[in-house]
């Protein structure tokens, strides 16, 4: 399976357990199977040590960043990693002012010099390609509350990276059904 899809990376964050949500919904949790993926990219704010430990068990390499709610965790503010031919940056996003602003994210991407910028914090999943670059937001895997944001759905992203090619699967839980949307992106050679 790994060969067919290239390298698989799970992208998720903002679980906020137990502050804003009790647990990862069973339907999504079932999909987080150990040893299927090579990377876990986490935008932070998982809430509990237990959840981070569970993530560590999912894949050999993990890239966690520190969310605004991660008081005790010793994670970096941002992290850059190479998957296939793609350079991926991960930040939490609470320090991107205004939150979720496309221009601000673009500035951050420039600074990190990455092909793919992953950020969270808004609890709204996003897959956006702009000017040869990919902006991803896995949303919140638990559907955690965010102020002034009604209708939040639990979501996460799975990346399949082969060379410069990235296939993005966005999983969203609407009611009882998991919707998957797929999009593709190719990193431009430098």
């Amino acid at each position, binding site marked *: 399976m790994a060969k067919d899809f290239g390298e698989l990376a799970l992208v998720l964050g903002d679980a906020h357990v137990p502050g804003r949500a009790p647990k990862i919904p069973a339907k999504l949790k079932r999909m987080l199977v150990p040893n299927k993926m090579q990377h876990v990219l986490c935008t932070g704010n998982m809430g509990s040590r237990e959840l981070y430990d569970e993530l560590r068990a999912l894949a050999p390499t993990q890239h966690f960043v520190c969310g605004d709610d991660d008081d005790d965790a010793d994670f970096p503010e941002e992290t850059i990693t190479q998957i296939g031919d793609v350079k991926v940056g991960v930040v939490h996003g609470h*320090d991107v002012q*205004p939150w979720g602003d496309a221009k601000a994210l673009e500035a951050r991407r420039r600074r990190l010099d990455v092909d793919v910028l992953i950020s969270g914090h808004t609890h709204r999943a996003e897959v956006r390609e702009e000017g040869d670059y990919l902006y991803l937001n896995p949303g919140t895997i638990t559907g955690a509350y965010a102020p002034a944001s009604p209708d939040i759905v639990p979501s996460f992203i799975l990346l399949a990276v082969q060379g410069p090619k990235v296939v993005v699967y966005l999983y969203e839980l609407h009611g009882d059904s998991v919707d998957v949307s797929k999009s593709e992106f190719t990193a431009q050679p430098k």
Partner: protein
Amino acid sequence: MALRQSNGAPSVEQQPRYLAEASRRVQEQGFYAKKACGARDLPGALRHSSDMLRELRTSLLTPRNYYELYMKVCDELRHLDQFFQQLVADGTPAADIYERAQACGDVLPRLYLLITAGAVYVKTMQAPARDILHDLVEMAKGVQHPMRGLFLRHYLAQACKDALPDTGSKFEGDGGDVSHAVDFILRNFGETNRLWVRMQNQGPASQKKRREEERKQLKILVGTNLVRLSQLEGVDESRYASDVLPPLLEQVVNCRDAIAQPYLLDCIINVFPDEFHLATLDSFLTCCTQLRDKVCVRSILEAMMRRLANGARQEDSEVLGPPGAFDAFDACASRLVEEKKEALKVADLIQLRAALLEFAVECYPGELEYVQRCLAQTSAAIMNDVVGDDAMELETLLLAPVSSQQMTLASLLTLDDIAPLTRRLPIEQRKNVARRCLRRVLDGDDALDSPEAVVKLCAILEPLLCGDDSSMNDEALEKEQTSVASLAHLCRSESTDDVFRVLGTLRRALGKGGSRRTAYTLPALAYRGLELARVANGPEFSARKVFQFVHETATALAGVAPARALRVFLAAALEADAQCLGAISYEFVSQAFILYEDELPDSKAQVKALRSMVGTLLAAENCDAADYDALAAKATQYAAKLFRKPDQCRMVAACSHLFWPPQRVEAVEAPPPAPAAEDDDAATVEDAPPPPPAPKKEGRKRDPKRVLECLQRSLKTADACMTSAQPPISLFVEILDHYLAHLEAGNPLITPKYIAGLVALITEHVETMEAGEAREAVERHYANTRALIKARGVIELD
């Protein structure tokens, strides 16, 4: 012929020698016997076989070694069996062989030969099977020595297993019917069991333990008979109920043996099918009340219940348990408790109830009454706090219902005895029960929808909710309280008033937990409150009331985890802002700012908090212009006062955006509708500071000048950093990005002139940087920014 030892047990050291010698003789005589068979010499075959069989008269071997010898003999006897069959096939009447086999003067070899001949006799059908079988089983009484008899009867069972007049067998009809087959096996079983029981009383009392051990090694010889019974085609449910089980149970009761009773009942449970058990449950259970005191009746009942439960599960029926079975077990348990009060220890008693309870939980998921009954009976039986084994058993008992998958929250809360029973346990076990209960409730995900439910649940969870937590390390505590806090998310109902009541009740229960616990639980309550505030529409509790609850909760949290509380306040502020509750929103932000000033432990926390504050302000679209100005100014002041210069530099630059907030499209056209009773805002929030200036419904204003001031201040700070050992050139590029952002956003004061100046400065600085990772990172960042400048044609680049 082997010597017989006059008394006492076989010597252990000599065992290998005895066995080897006996085996050799068996082999030798077996060889001659086989030879005689080959020569069609019946007297010779019988004589040598007798000599071989005499080895089995030994008293020198332990059961294990005797078994080995026995197996060797059985192997040899197969030749004799074949020879007999051949003789009959060639015309010798089977009756003759049967008689000749009885000439041997020693009873043990004679009976082995008789059985061998008898089996052939039956198979030739020259006599009715029932007569021969009856004769064999009777004659075998000649061996009263327990161990030798056990093996002889085992041989009988084995030799005749294919010679029974079972339904459908060829021996049926003239040979008898299945009742004769049953009778034969039952008799043999009865005798076997008696011999087995008798082993217990042989030899000196000092060797009791060893004898028990030896008996246990031999039990399979007894159980074989029950297996045979269960294999009879003709034994159906009604025959089992009328002809098979009653004599078996009679034997069990009458043997009065504490080893045999549980073993035999266990065999019965295992070898016969479920429907037989169901049809006869009452007699079985009656038997269970008549056992020796030493027998662990509980485990027998347990085994039967488990058996029925498994069967029920496989059938996948709606109600898993057979109707009436629980009542039967319950009655049996009660009778046992009644009759054996003296013999039963508390632990036994609890175990008994626990078994029953587990059965109820597994097989009768709908029948809460069963569970309640078990718990009530347990409650009645336990007068004091329990420790040790008793506690362990009680814990097991309590875990059955509280961790059952089928147990819904509502069902769990009808079990009124759980909480008082839990309190009988030592604290660690209490906690364990509470934890498992909590896990079940969380996994079940049923709504906590009434204050009463919360009170009941919290009574069970009490050891997790309050009390001394000094012995727990942080990690364990976090794990535990993470679960506890998750309860907040179960507070759900159609009626937002109900949710509010439930939350309040939970808040009161969790509030007693002390600072370490509430650091985890209060945020959950507060956020759940904010979610509720968004939808609150009850006649009794409005959004304001809910915000007040959040305010109280966050204030309580502030004393415990200020940074967390600060974020709650900010989230509350945004939520209120979204609902255009300006005053409330302002109050929440103010609280956050107060916490920022007074409570944060270090500069790192300050930076983090400040980012959240700036982000919140930017997101608060409905904020009153005047309030906004004040707060933005305050935040910028905080930024400028940060401890580390690079932090100052970055945060001040970030604050520049506060003065160019995103504009709401509709804010320009029509101000949001003013919420009712705006003036009462302050009064609804406790400890509120003086009310903010009367709100004017005006959108947030942009201030190009303040933007420029921030950027320039940031630049100045960056410049001041240049004296440090590793000048942070990256800061300049970051500031350049902010300039560009504002330029693009249309700030008239930010002109390309500034960009050009910065570009020149950075280009110069970068060239002075030492080669290395830091420089490369800056160069890449700078190159990206330059590419943008170029793409947008902001200024001419070299």
